[in-house]
């Protein structure tokens, strides 16, 4: 196997394409968790967003409508989670698991009801790459960085935006404080519940965008469980990325790089079992991210219901 394979420009192009949905979903989850709510229903939310995006795009022939509908669907599920977490002070892990199972079944049901049994699958037009004028023709980096779809560009632009929003704005400060010590935020007269609901809407919209990315950019269709664990991976990226946007980005790029690499390696190296190659991205990401996680601290109030009437 030639070492050139490791720095193949096509490999890097693929890395960006397949890291994008992970990054978007991870950013959404990061915002929600920074507010103190633990959402483990990302996989279900992404599936519902994917099927909603697909169905609406198929019906309206509008990618924008489909993406918007997918984002909205996930945001509604996120609001449901936060309602249980904030208003009812319910167990967030249980509700999150319930949302995951609901998402798996609901997405499959929606597809079945709309399309039924066919011998030819329904298909939508996927987004075409949009070359950046002037930059797309640069040698090597042009095709890698500047010949991507709009959603792929957006995924990477969102990382500094979310970072700035969280760490350089009053809203971000309040949100992070809500996740660390909601009582002190409440004492300042700031509505903790409103912040958490707001975080759920924003985070849910981003998770939905991550789910919508799959049919609208990659496949042109919907299939049961098409997220294939990407929601769980996004959750892992947030946790092991120390709840920081740029670290989560690094984890997503690492996973997507190894995932793209294993398909190329599988073509030239037949001595390594294919099952091992398929396992490689997960092993790699876990090994590196567990190392990075050392010393990280979760938001202090994460998954802890806030009761302003409680003493102490």
């Amino acid at each position: 196997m030639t070492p050139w394979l490791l720095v193949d420009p096509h490999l890097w192009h693929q890395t960006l394409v397949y890291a994008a949905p992970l990054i978007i979903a991870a950013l959404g989850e990061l915002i929600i968790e920074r507010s103190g709510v633990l959402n483990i229903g990302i996989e279900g939310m992404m599936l519902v967003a994917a099927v909603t995006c697909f169905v609406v795009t198929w019906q309206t022939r509008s990618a924008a409508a489909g993406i918007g509908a997918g984002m909205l669907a996930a945001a509604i599920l996120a609001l449901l989670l936060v309602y249980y977490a904030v208003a009812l002070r319910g167990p967030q892990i249980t509700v999150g698991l319930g949302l995951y199972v609901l998402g798996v079944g609901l997405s499959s049901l929606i597809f079945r009801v709309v399309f039924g049994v066919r011998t030819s699958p329904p298909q939508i037009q996927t987004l075409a790459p949009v070359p950046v004028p002037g930059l797309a023709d640069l040698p090597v980096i042009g095709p890698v960085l500047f010949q991507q779809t709009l959603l792929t560009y957006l995924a990477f632009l969102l990382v500094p935006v979310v970072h700035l929003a969280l760490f350089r704005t009053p809203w971000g400060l309040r949100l992070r404080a809500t996740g660390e010590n909601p009582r002190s935020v409440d004492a300042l007269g700031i509505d903790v519940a409103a912040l958490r609901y707001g975080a759920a809407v924003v985070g849910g919209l981003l998770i939905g965008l991550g789910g919508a990315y799959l049919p609208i950019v990659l496949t042109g269709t919907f299939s049961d469980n098409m997220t294939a664990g990407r929601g769980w991976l996004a959750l892992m990226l947030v946790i092991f990325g120390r709840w920081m946007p740029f670290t989560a980005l690094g984890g997503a790029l690492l996973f997507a790089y190894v995932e793209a690499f294993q398909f190329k390696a599988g073509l030239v190296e037949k001595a390594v079992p294919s099952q091992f190659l398929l396992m490689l991205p997960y092993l790699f990401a876990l090994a590196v991210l567990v190392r990075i996680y050392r010393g990280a601290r979760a938001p202090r109030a994460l998954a802890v219901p806030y009761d302003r009437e409680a003493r102490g």
Partner: protein
Amino acid sequence: MDRRSFLALTLAGAAARPHLAAAQAKRKMAMIMPGPIQDADFNAVGYLALQQVAKTYDLQVSHSESVVVADAERITREYVTAGYEIVANHGGQFIPIMNKLAPQLSNATWIQEASGRLPNLPKNAWNIGRKFLQGFYVLGALGALATKSNKVGMVCGVRLPDVITSVNSVAQALRDVNPQAQLLYNWVGDFNDPVKARQTAEAQIAAGADFIVVFVNLGLSGVIEAVKAAPRPVLLTTFYTEKWDLAPKNLTVSLIFDFNKPYHEIVGKILKGERTGYYEMRPGSGMELSEIRNVPPSVADKTRAIFKEVVAGKAIPEVVDKTP
């Protein structure tokens, strides 16, 4: 319970009795499938065959889809307990379940799909041998004839015997028809993951493949997206059903599977008391070639000629213990 309620219940039961009796009089058949019936592919054609058999023989039918092997035994026992006398396993992964249960539940008859003739078939089981490798030999031959880069890709789902023998038969076709051509193949690990299938196809296209033989189900959508986004023309094949509308400029041929034929014949025989036997699905018997498009007429003619040779019995080595 007062008298009126009792009378209402009795009348309702009496009204339902003819319907129940009618349903009870119907013989029952169930089908167990490894994937969803909305896959527009393998599982969909199995489901449609089941519905056709139900109409033809006036059977009460039921199906279970997306069944993992670990659940298949429980589901099968539930069907047999509920009076289903025919159980069709639409997938080779259920062979161990059939081997275990058929001797135990002798009042039911199995229809088990496999890659060929099963050894030690129970006396209450039919065996459908699906000779994928013979059909895929023809698809490989088309690829060998149509490729301009001399690199033929193959996107494979799960590493099952059917798929292994098909990879080897495609490799054999390349050796026979175009020894210059090289086979590039990957295992996606899933028949129904279009995202991974797209990544696989993109890797093969980046490595120079300009013709891709597809052995995935829903994953085909991902392969089609990879082909549409390719920097140069790439052709591909599909199977089970025709899917021209998905990629009219790239699809060349479909290896059509007609599960109606074997199920119609076998169920008819079971209902008459013949509870074991073998039916081979192969080119010319439940397996046909669609029209061939997007290749020169000479390539299409040669491919059809090779198909006829396979129908007539051309020997194709069945290699299952290794891959190229």
